[in-house]
């Protein structure tokens, strides 16, 4: 037993042991990981939505908003916050593909009248110290109270109503554009988002 079979058996046994250990660890960490991801969504929802007393992450509507390069349908999830059973706001995530480096994912909260309540950056890879200032409250705060009508959804450098960041125009421009598109999508699908019953009530 010194030729190829020995090598194969040794490697197989090692991989088997590795697989066993990993499946054990995975089964132990599955629930905490799912909980962490849920908490992260919930934290973002709490910052962008008006007061709610339901579980917006369980009261959702999925709408198709386009297709990816392979022709598969892309859906967008709308989280609905309710206070005492009355709709208090809708939140959804948008992804800006045109940041300075990589995608910028964010969550937008809108009240039933269509006014932005809050914006939260979920993930980004913008330059530290420059583009990452999109995560600062004074940048995110200026979205609050904005509506689709009567606001020029561009950064000031392009003639719009939103302050850009000194030294970084690309990141704010991408954020403003993505939020604007998300708002337009919500506007054109208002009835579905606001009226239909959720996936689970």
């Amino acid at each position: 037993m010194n030729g190829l079979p020995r090598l194969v058996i040794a490697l197989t046994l090692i991989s088997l042991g590795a697989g066993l250990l990993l499946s054990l660890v995975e089964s132990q960490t599955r629930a905490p990981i799912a909980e962490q991801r849920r908490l992260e969504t919930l934290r973002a929802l709490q910052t962008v939505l008006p007061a709610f007393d339901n579980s917006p992450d369980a009261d959702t509507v999925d709408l198709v908003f386009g297709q990816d390069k392979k022709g598969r349908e892309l859906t967008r999830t709308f989280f609905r916050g309710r206070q005492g059973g009355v709709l208090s706001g809708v939140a959804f995530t948008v992804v800006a593909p045109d940041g300075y480096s990589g995608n910028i994912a964010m969550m937008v909260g809108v009240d039933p009248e269509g006014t932005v309540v809050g914006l939260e950056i979920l993930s980004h890879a913008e330059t530290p110290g420059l583009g990452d200032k999109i995560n600062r409250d004074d940048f995110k705060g200026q979205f609050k109270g904005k509506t689709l009508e009567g606001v020029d959804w561009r950064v000031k450098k392009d003639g719009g109503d939103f302050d850009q960041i000194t030294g970084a125009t690309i990141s704010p421009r991408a954020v403003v554009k993505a939020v604007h598109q998300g708002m337009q999508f919500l506007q054109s699908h208002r009835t579905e988002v606001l009226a239909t019953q959720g996936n689970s009530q």
Partner: protein
Amino acid sequence: MSLLKEFRKGLWRENAVFRLLLGLCPTLAVTTSAENGLGMGLATTFVLVGSNVVVSLMRQVIPSKVRIPAFIVIIATFVTVVQLCMEAYFYDLYKALGIFIPLIVVNCVILGRAEAFASKNRLLPALVDGLGMGVGFTLALFVLGAVRELFGSGTLLGYAVFGSSYQPLLLLILPPGAFIAMGLLLAGMNSFDARRR
């Protein structure tokens, strides 16, 4: 005490980052803050100790022709364990370190210790070697991260150190700053060593 010697060599004389210049990819990439450096260092230490122990225990069983794939499987297993546990219990750190956690697999410090030390030594020395190398690696990442964070964003472990009038030296947080800070630290260590001799 030879065990103590095995431990201490990783801290200074054979420090993976500052002396052997191994594992520089994660070193340069994640040390934008002291906390990230510490987290990455501890994760690497865990993998290093785990893989050293297992490789040392199995050194008689693993045929030398397939030792490298066997080592990689063992290392990758520990890395995945770290990744899952970190995502479950240290979610913020997990998000900050991102892609560099799975990349611990290809950190050549770990394969280097498995090949050069653990596969030739008994359990206890291998464990101590992994611990020493890991602590040395963690220290190096922590120091580099602290220097970059201190001057790059004016904070240390998230606490403001300099007043608000301090204009952060952004360059140090950016990728070129990693090389510059690393080079300056190396120069400092070399001149310290030269003077002591």
